[in-house]
């Protein structure tokens, strides 16, 4: 081991000055050039939806020149997020992020979208940040720049910059605030005459009302209703249940919606509501459901907030990792071991897609999915189920190219106490999961909501 370290150390002591010399030469060349003209940086397309890829290209560099490509985004919360990759130009003086390999930075290898998905808060930022766009009527602006050299690139002014706009809303998508029959939320409607298939879209606890996924789904052809459901204190579980049924019916009865093509998409706590509604409602029948980071824990007769209170009684059993980040996974596993605590998913009769991360440290979502599979199998309904389980992915499975959050600040609903919750996942694997799962979610929705023969369970 020591021998290896010695060899590696020797190699580094040889290559490092060489690299520095190379950087200096290129830097001198570039300085001379910049008296004339700088390199040309382009991002194509410069305006795109967040789930679309782009190509980042640098031209007019000296050949064989070490450069760093850097992305920078200032969030709505005024935090700065960045990503960067170290590259070397070819004999034509070109760097193509789609074709070339990054040799270091926040991502390595051939990663056309690495400048987005590997973003993290700049050094010195507050801890536990999460990047979420609240105003989806404007694009996310990402500044992409190219700097000379690798080490210490931040100390040098960029050679060239370009701005990329990343949109959640396609042109023509309409946004409508809903406050109807006691139900609150935001509705997104695709452009065109309609009518359209539709989705009830629910996020998890602690997030507030998030609209970006609904905006994106509308951009992909679905009327999507982002439901605000944790703002109220309900008197009973029945009343709360009716809230969700009413929300579903508001969508179903909307003039732009095809009434028998309404599905539910829920993540985390939202996935529990999806299971609950689909299993127990006698008045609404979703065409299909998608559960991201599946959760079926719902002690009978409890409201969501009451259920959360029960959950919080187990927090003392939570495991804290080496960074003091709180994981609920292990005590949650115990809780769901008792089937009386859980939604009877065996009652579900529509197609289901479950999307989970194998490194989910917040909730035993993979185990939940296995349990769902077992219960459906018992009822002869396993053909209704599709499961995606991604190794190395965590709890917060977002649209593609979103940065990965392994742990973030979280306000415990009842106590207002702030902790840092461990969601899990390793960035590269998690990002791959986000990209792959989104495509598969859209494909599943297209099949069941756009043109499906009706799938009936064998009862």
């Amino acid at each position, binding site marked *: 081991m020591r021998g290896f370290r010695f060899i590696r150390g020797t190699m580094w002591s040889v290559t490092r000055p060489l690299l520095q010399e190379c950087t200096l030469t290129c830097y001198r060349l570039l300085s001379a050039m910049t008296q004339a003209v700088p390199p040309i940086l382009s991002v194509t397309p410069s305006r795109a939806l967040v789930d679309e890829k782009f190509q980042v290209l640098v031209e007019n560099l000296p050949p064989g020149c070490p450069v760093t490509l850097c992305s920078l985004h200032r969030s709505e919360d005024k935090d700065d997020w960045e990503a960067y990759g170290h590259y070397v130009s070819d004999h034509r003086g070109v760097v193509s992020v789609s074709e070339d390999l990054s040799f270091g930075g926040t991502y390595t290898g051939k990663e056309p979208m690495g400048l987005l998905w590997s973003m993290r808060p700049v050094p010195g930022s507050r801890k536990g940040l999460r990047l979420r766009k609240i105003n989806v009527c404007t694009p996310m602006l990402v500044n992409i720049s190219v700097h000379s050299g690798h080490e210490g690139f931040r100390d040098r002014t960029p050679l060239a910059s370009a701005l990329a706009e990343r949109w959640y809303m396609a042109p023509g998508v309409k946004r409508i605030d809903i406050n109807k029959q006691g139900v609150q939320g935001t509705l997104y409607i695709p452009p065109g005459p309609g009518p359209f298939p539709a989705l009830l879209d629910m996020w998890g606890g602690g997030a507030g009302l998030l609209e970006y996924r609904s905006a994106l789904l509308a951009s992909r052809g679905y009327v999507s209703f982002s439901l605000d459901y944790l703002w109220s204190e309900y008197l009973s579980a029945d009343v709360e249940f009716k809230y969700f049924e009413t929300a579903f019916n508001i969508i179903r009865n909307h003039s732009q919606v095809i009434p028998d093509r309404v599905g539910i998409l829920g993540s985390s706590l939202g996935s529990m509501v999806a299971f609950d509604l689909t299993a127990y409602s006698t008045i609404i029948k979703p065409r299909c459901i998608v559960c991201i980071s599946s959760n079926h824990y719902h002690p009978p007769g409890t409201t969501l907030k009451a259920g959360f209170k029960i959950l919080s009684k187990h927090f003392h059993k939570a495991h804290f990792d080496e960074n003091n980040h709180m994981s609920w996974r292990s005590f949650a596993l115990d809780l769901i071991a008792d089937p009386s605590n859980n939604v009877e998913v065996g009652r579900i009769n529509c197609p289901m897609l479950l999307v989970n991360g194998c490194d989910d440290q917040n909730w035993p979502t993979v185990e939940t999915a296995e349990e769902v599979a077992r219960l459906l199998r018992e009822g002869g309904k396993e053909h209704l189920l599709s499961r995606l389980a991604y190794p190395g992915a965590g709890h917060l499975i977002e649209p593609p190219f979103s940065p990965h959050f392994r742990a973030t600040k979280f306000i415990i609903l009842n106590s207002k106490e702030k902790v840092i919750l461990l969601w899990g996942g390793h960035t590269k694997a998690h990002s791959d999961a986000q990209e792959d799962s989104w495509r598969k979610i859209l494909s599943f929705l297209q099949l069941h909501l*756009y043109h499906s023969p009706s799938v009936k369970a064998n009862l």
Partner: protein
Amino acid sequence: MDRKQCCVKLSVQPSRGLMDEKFIVLVQNALPGSQLTIRALHQCEDGHSWEAFGHYTADTTGTINLSEDPSIRGTYSGVEQMGLLWSLRPIPGSKPGLRMRKKNIQTPMEVTISVYQGHQTEGFADLVPLSGVVVERWYMAPGVRGFQLQKVDSPQPFFLPLGPGPFPGLLDLYGLGGQLVEYRAALLASHGFASMAIDYVNSKFTIETGKMVDSQYFETAYRVLQQHPQVCKSRIAMIGFSFGTSITLKMAIYSEIIKLSAAVCISGSHVQPVDGSVEEILRFSYKNAGKTRFSEKDEKIWRDQLLPIPTDPSLKADVGRLQCPLLLLVGEDDQSCPAQESALDIKEMMAQAGNSHLLTVLSYPNAGHLIEPPYTPHTRSSNFRTTGMPEKVMYLWGGQTVEHSRAQEDAWKKILVFLRENLYGGRNPTLFSHL
């Protein structure tokens, strides 16, 4: 619910693009073999509506891809990925002589693309489409900054790319149309050139005196551009269209102050009094007003005013003295200007002077006078009021739509490569492969 209605999915990628970028229009989940019409509708800033459409048949998978499948008939036919844009024309019943030109380039051109059941040719307003999307087409890339550069006479629109620079500079001159055109300068800035659109028709001087500005006006513009901290002093080019060509050649050849790295001349001529003032050059072309012809539709044809190309060297800009590369773009069906004849004469003059290695001529059969950025709808004739004339009259510009549109697409790519090579150095046209 009608299954057909639910099925058909229409998508356009990218939904937000630059004016010169291609898009892919895709129809999916249609009934295999079904007949469908794909239509584009655009409402101009002046309130007029323009449309284009193509008739298609869905394949066995129920798909239509405009970059692969042919339109059987419509405002365009054949495999035409961008046909829905370049074949746009005013909807039936519109007043004649319309031309599409965007004034406000801070906002995009919005086009609604829809798919209809069957092969429809008219009455679209009364039909309900199966599906529709909205597409944005921008002249300005994100990050391009547009502002007014203060000049001696009046502020000029200036477009600066994002980044530290310095950037090569461009002076952009349109023709005598009377309306300042900024869109080309904005689009060129989106490709990395610090571009100034020079309004030489509506200057304070012209409004007050009724006379054209002189060389000093353009030389001041050049100086102001040079002095901008983010512009490369020694890499400035000029691009002139129609009468703008006359000014470009005059400055390139005769100005002591303006030293161009390159010049692009579109649909113009070198026939003008040697070293005449701009006013004199303008008067020269009006002198032969008697040579104006009229088409059978009573459209004014201007091209003969400068013909025949004189042999007298005092009547032609001395292109043999040019010291920078020159790109000439010619529509062979140009009815306004004898651009083709002029180009041939320029070639001869430069061959004799020994500087023809500087010249590139791009000559397009059946293209007309109005060679605009790609996918701009072709205007064969329109209502036009030129400087010094009181009324709008129908002018014939020429060109056949298909060939003219191909010319615009090809010309633009080549203009960008030419500018890149001469202003940035190096030959790496990879950047334009998506155009």
